[in-house]
């Protein structure tokens, strides 16, 4: 294979593998019910060709951007086709694992429900908690940064509290803040607060002695130094924290719904559907959560590139 690819050149071999890749996928899908054993062999072959395709893409120096974009989809295709074929070939009960095609059908068939759940859990619960938690962390970080005594005292205690597992705190917070999204937001605040605090504090401290001395030679005030030096310098850390917290926020809001919720929300839907053995619905919700998470992550990545363009890790 490798020799073939070297002979062909990467561009051409990527172009050869792509149709082959699609063709084998179709064969495997077509054979899934007719001949389970063969279908699985086709899947193995498909995975192999998929790998070769990605490998060829990886060497495609002429268009690294295309490779970066296409390769994840190729892997995704391998997983999805493999899943579909194996579930159908082995006749896995759909109450254990439904095939992707069924999930897609359920997903498109329940868009209004899923949208309502998305609004309830992500927009109301997760986002409000995320924003409040991050702002709170920013405020406390500035305090902690200003008063060394607070840093020495708060950080270790905070560290300890951050270790309190969400499954223990969520029922308590639901008890305190009620069944609606407010309690989910509270859970999210608790979850994102500390990672944000740690990152912002580290970021605010991430200035060199020379930069701080420079500000002293201007006899700049604390707030001037904060605004012109420390906040910008902290931005890369802030984004680090924002990214970590983004996934925590989604997970927190969803999980908190297990401990009481109105009859709408992603966590509620997962729970109720699981009880109804509607696994296709469960997976549809997972898709919503993953898409929401990836979108949020993507937005943060773009924002980061835009605001911390100056950081070496962002320069290209």
């Amino acid at each position, binding site marked *: 294979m490798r020799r073939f690819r070297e002979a062909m050149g990467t561009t051409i071999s990527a172009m050869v593998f792509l149709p082959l890749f699609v063709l084998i996928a179709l064969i495997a899908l077509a054979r899934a019910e007719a001949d389970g054993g063969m279908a699985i062999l086709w899947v193995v072959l498909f995975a192999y060709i998929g790998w070769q395709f990605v490998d060829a893409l990886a060497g495609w120096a002429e268009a690294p951007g295309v490779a970066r974009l296409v*390769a994840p989809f190729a892997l995704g295709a391998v997983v999805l086709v493999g899943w579909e074929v194996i579930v159908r070939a082995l006749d896995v009960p759909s109450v254990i694992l439904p095939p992707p095609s069924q999930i897609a059908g359920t997903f498109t068939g329940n868009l209004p429900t899923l949208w309502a759940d998305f609004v309830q859990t992500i927009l109301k619960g997760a986002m409000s908690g995320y924003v409040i938690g991050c702002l709170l962390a920013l405020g406390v970080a500035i305090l902690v940064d200003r008063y060394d005594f607070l840093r020495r005292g708060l950080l270790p205690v905070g560290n300890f509290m951050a270790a309190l597992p969400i499954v223990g705190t969520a029922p308590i917070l639901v008890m305190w803040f009620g069944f609606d999204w407010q309690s989910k937001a509270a859970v999210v605040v608790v979850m994102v607060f500390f990672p944000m605090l740690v990152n912002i504090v580290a970021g605010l401290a991430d200035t060199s002695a020379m930069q701080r001395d420079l500000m002293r030679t201007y006899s700049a005030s604390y707030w001037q130094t904060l605004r012109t030096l420390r906040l910008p310098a902290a931005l890369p850390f802030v984004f680090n924290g924002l990214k970590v917290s983004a996934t925590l926020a989604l997970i927190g809001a969803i999980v908190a719904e297990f401990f009481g919720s109105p009859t709408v929300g992603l966590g509620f839907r997962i729970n109720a559907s699981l009880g109804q053995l509607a696994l296709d619905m469960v997976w549809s919700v997972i898709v919503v959560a993953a898409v929401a998470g990836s979108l949020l992550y993507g937005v943060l990545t773009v924002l980061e590139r835009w605001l911390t363009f100056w950081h070496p890790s962002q320069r290209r």
Partner: protein
Amino acid sequence: MSARSGNRFGRAVLPVLAVVATLLAVWYVAVVPMNVKEVLTQAEREGAVVVPPSAAERRDAGRWSLVFTNPHLLGSSWSMDRARLPAPHQVAQELWASTWVEETTGRRGIVRSGSFSNRSLVYHGGVTLGATVLGFVIGSMLGVLLAVGIVYNRAMDLSVMPWAIISQTIPIVALAPMIIVVLYSVGLSGLVAKAAISAYLSFFPVAVGMVKGLRSPDAMQLDLLRTYSAGKAQSFWKLRLPASVPYLFASLKIAIAASLVGAIVGELPVQRGGLGARMLGGSYYGQTEQIWAALIVAAVMAAGLVWFIGWIERRTLKAMGAQP
């Protein structure tokens, strides 16, 4: 020497004590408004005159205003049975009772039965610890392997990394019961099923950290090995791996905390002991102190595990000649 340790006390311990004391004070105060409605309802049942008189009216009243209109009835705030917020000493009592007292005097305690009592947090902590450690070991090994693959294989780098990120947006914690059942169907149950969830949660930080770590050697260090015409394996063992050690430990600390959460989550649906089962039990019967006590044990365990990794880190780095 003594001057130094005094200094250390002033710099490290005193602020923590001050913060803890403040938190406890706030906690004690918060207990009053948090529990006021239940306290007043109880008082009403015992015949006291409460303003406003009916529980239904009180439902919509502000907590603080209830506190100020009925100050004389609040004595039992700190000793409520099913408190919304138990007082710190209630939690402490529960902690003490469900560890030391249960083990030393309980019928099933280690003193009288020879094995840890299933009513003590020592036993449940142990159950959770086992799954945590197993999941952590599996997860970290997977994370390291994945990182090696990503660093040494561009195709993997391109295709796997985005999915690793997406994998973390899946609310695995919410799916734990399903995963456990699916694992049942392939013959895995109990410890291994819990450990699988732990492993899922802990592989990601390790993979990300190790990718960073394995890529941390600069171009010059890599070129140096090329001038020796060293092979891939040699460059891994002699350069990339040692260079990644600090990153490895930093991510292991995150991973073990995540692993603990995974184990607890895995214990919720399978009610066979562990801190997770204990928290659920507390929630199920409205025993808030029991949740708090289990929570605190979990946090202490997390702190202990992270400290332990830190200890190994310090020893390893010292053996590797790090500047103290």
